């Protein structure tokens, strides 16, 4: 087994990528620790990549996690409150149920916004009905109604309320839809009930879908914009503005001559969502969490939608041109001008960082988009992805992933903490990219790590401005002196050969 990461002066031999057979063997090895039935289940989720997307290497996904394996997944409440609706800044999001769910998701997601906290913006706050035993026994509808009234009184500038259901709500048979309807009328503002109880579905994913449907049913198409329409109106969908990502992406779209009329949902507002149906095109970054509303808007309003990728120069330029193709010569010309300007910046970053990062091998495990979407950014800096996987992706995400990776690269769906650790131990990447629950495990193993949900408190990573920050951070993680100091000189641990 190779020793922990050495200083980057050993830029010598980069180990070759394993073949499909070698990856299969590694997978088999790791599965041996499981009871046979569990091994059989898990085997369907661990495959070597086939860039052609062949049936043999198809990864099973979006099904229940096996109990007790230490899945990294969360639940539907997290997908709804944490991911999709929580970032909406001018709504109050009630965590409806006991105190815990809202507490553990308070201020922990870096969906940035402009606003005055507690006055016209409510993102980094914890609003809850703090269920006690009597609420379980007698139901929480009356309390919910009173909570809505108290919110309107104490937070008069709130533009609306969402009710994020926690597990007990669905189990005790509360009728939050009725309360929401009543309170919407009484308070003259949208009150959106969301049935995102944690036991629904198998991960955060169904929570995204439920939240999208709630927007569809209670907000979509309900208002007309105050601003005149233009032929260049677009909605920026599926960007949660982590560390300012959406602002960095919006800059590119505006440089292209497009007019962004709504951000779904980072730094987003009720009004943007309610007037979005006037977009000429919907541009979606996080496909997994918001493809649903794009499909709805296409069916209901005839709005076409396009997926795009603003991670790294290659994908940015490719996406810009593909988007520009949906518009006129004016946009195409503006786009080429912007690309020319951006190339100067891209060059500066590539020149500075590629020599330091070339050949470095990266393993990723993120949510539903980034395990494939960031590959281009790493490759733009000369790095290589040697393993990737998702917490809660579906088949269509894996279909989009296969062509982005080389043959034989290991793909893991809903990996357990054990599997991730085992793969990392065998593959010894130069950099791990995953979440906060994984970070300190890999640090203790001597593997540099960057959080790829929260950007490790950095960002933005999207767009032109984000690429420089991304490059700086990957360099910092890999090249910090700490990694070379882990083994005490007097220990009898194995020495590098």
């Amino acid at each position, binding site marked *: 087994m190779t020793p922990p990461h050495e200083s980057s002066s050993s830029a010598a031999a980069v180990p070759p990528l394993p073949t499909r057979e070698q990856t299969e063997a590694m997978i088999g090895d790791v599965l041996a620790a499981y009871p046979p039935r569990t091994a059989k289940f898990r085997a369907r989720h661990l495959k070597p990549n086939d860039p052609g997307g062949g049936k043999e290497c198809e990864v099973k996904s979006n099904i229940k996690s096996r109990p007790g394996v230490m899945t990294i997944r969360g639940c539907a409440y997290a997908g709804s409150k944490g991911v999709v609706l929580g970032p909406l800044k001018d709504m109050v999001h009630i965590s409806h149920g006991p105190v815990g769910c809202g507490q553990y998701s308070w201020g922990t997601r870096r969906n940035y916004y402009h606003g005055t906290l507690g*006055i016209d913006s409510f993102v980094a706050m914890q609003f809850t009905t703090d269920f006690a035993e009597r609420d379980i026994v007698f139901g929480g509808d009356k309390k919910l109604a009173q909570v809505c009234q108290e919110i309107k009184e104490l937070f008069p500038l709130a533009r609306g309320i969402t009710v994020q259901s926690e597990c007990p709500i669905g189990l005790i048979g509360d009728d939050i839809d009725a309360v929401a309807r009543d309170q919407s009328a009484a308070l003259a503002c949208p009150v959106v009930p969301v049935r995102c109880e944690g036991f629904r579905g198998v991960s955060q994913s169904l929570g995204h879908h439920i939240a999208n449907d709630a927007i569809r049913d209670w907000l979509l198409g309900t208002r007309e914009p*105050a601003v005149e329409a233009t032929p260049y109106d677009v909605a920026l969908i599926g960007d949660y503005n982590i560390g300012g990502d959406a602002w960095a992406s919006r800059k590119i779209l505006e440089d292209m001559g497009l007019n962004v009329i709504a951000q779904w949902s980072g730094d987003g507002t009720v009004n943007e969502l309610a007037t979005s149906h006037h977009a000429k095109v919907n541009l979606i970054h996080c496909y997994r969490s918001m493809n649903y509303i794009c499909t709805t808007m296409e069916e209901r309003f005839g709005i076409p939608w396009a997926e795009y990728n603003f991670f790294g120069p290659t994908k940015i330029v490719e996406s810009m041109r593909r988007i520009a193709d949906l518009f006129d010569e004016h946009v195409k010309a503006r786009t080429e001008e912007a690309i020319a300007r951006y190339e100067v910046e891209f060059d500066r970053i590539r020149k500075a960082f590629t020599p330091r990062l070339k050949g470095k091998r990266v393993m990723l495990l993120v949510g539903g988009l980034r395990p494939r979407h960031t590959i281009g950014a790493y490759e733009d800096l000369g790095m290589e992805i040697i393993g990737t996987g998702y917490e809660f992706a579906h088949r269509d995400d894996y279909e989009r992933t296969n062509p982005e990776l080389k043959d034989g690269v290991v793909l893991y769906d809903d990996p357990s903490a*054990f599997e991730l650790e085992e793969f990392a131990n065998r593959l010894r990447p130069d950099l791990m990219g995953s979440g906060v629950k994984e970070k300190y495990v890999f640090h203790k193993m001597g593997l540099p790590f960057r959080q790829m949900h929260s950007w490790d408190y950095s960002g933005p990573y999207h767009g032109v401005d984000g690429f420089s920050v991304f490059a700086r951070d990957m360099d910092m993680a890999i090249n910090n002196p700490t990694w070379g100091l882990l083994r005490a000189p007097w220990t009898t641990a194995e020495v590098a050969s």
Partner: protein
Amino acid sequence: MTTIPAAGKIRDHNEIFRSEEYLEQAERKKAYEQPCTSDEVAATLEWTKSWEYREKNFAREALTVNPVKACQPLGAVLASLGFAGTLPLVHGSQGCVAYFRSHFTRHFREPVPAVSSSMTEDAAVFGGMSNLVEALQNATSVYKPAMVAVSTTCMAEVIGDDLQNFITGARAKEVIGPEYPVPFAHTPSFVGSHLTGYDVMVRGILSSLTEGRKAEPNGKVNIVPGFLPSTGDLREIKRLLGLLGVDYTLLGDHSDTLDSPATGEYELYPGGTPLEEAADAVNATATVFLQEGSTRKTAELVRHDWGADEVTLPLPVGVANTDGFVATVARLAGVEIPAAVTAERGRLLDAMSDSYSYLHGKRVALVGDPDLVVAVTAFLLELGAIPVHLVSTNGDEAFASKTEEVLAASPFGHEATVWPGKDLWHLRSLVHTEPVDLLIGSSYLKYLSREAGIPLVRVGFPIFDRHHLHRYPIVGYGGGIWLLTQLVNTVLEELDRTAPDHSFDAVR
């Protein structure tokens, strides 16, 4: 290779969005936001700082805003991690476990192993027996713990899953051996708080491990610290007991589990109270509980079943509380208090005499778990500081009367009001209408600190936005010096920040 990339300046979110182009972008975006006017925002902001708003705020009956409270199973997970080789298993929805792990990881900056039985919608109908059985099988095969401590999420509680029944079933299916320890506790999230969950899990673990183990007295003193998310505090308690020469068992001890070294190898179960020692705890001479709010059920067990001396003490923060701890433990263990301990006490008093002038008369708002609030209040009074607003969302009447007692015993305690059950939005009104000089509490007080311009000393849980504070104690004489250091230097930073040039003294 150069060590500094030749990239020039790289601006991240801290700087880049202040640039003109991004400020203009934000202005353009407003056209689609239907935003409030800046006048509306300013007027409302002012209104929310008023007495009128405070009254409405305190008239709330149903809404909770920014509470300082978490749910039972979170506490159960910490309790489990205090015992050697123990894997917490929370039976119910898997999202909860993801949250408990990330919550503790953000505070300790450590891995927090825990597994879920991953119940989904069909388990809500049929019950979670098969989930728990499979969870035990998978977890023990893969993670090889010496013990699995089981608690519950509210889903499992609402549908009425019976843990004892299920665990017996798991043994019947031979998924775990007949003697393999699987203590359990029901931890409904809609009852009490994380303190309750900690308590019942410790009780469950001790009840299980000590069964049939009554034997000859072992001459030890048990120390049950209660919910203490500070590895520094646990280490300081152990160090102090070591100085006293007391033979002790710490029930539980997550000081290594949640503060392990980085060596290049990841260890799943570093440290924790050895299970054999925990089993033998029933034969101790005496048991000392350090925080009433998270040890009362365990104290009932000891009182009822173990039949030895037991006493509940305040968390040993400050001079009198630490004196009480030292004297009580020394008496129970039958040891003389050594000069080294007296000297430590002397050093704390020395530090207090160095620094009191910057803390005397300072008005303080303090927020946290009830036992932390009572204990730190006592220390503040010893420094001549003036507690004004004391908030504990999960504090009950017992906490309130204990705190009133402590306040009444000091001339500096007369301006305080104790607020059990209130949240940080209540605190905001309190501070805006009756300002203070210092805030003491978790990272969640930072918004108020910034808004009101009052410095925050981070003590308690969770502390997410500063590093390594939990590695340092606030208990004991040593912890008193550390806490005093934090308090006085925060006051001095603020003094320097606001001082007129002539008062910008080199020596303070």
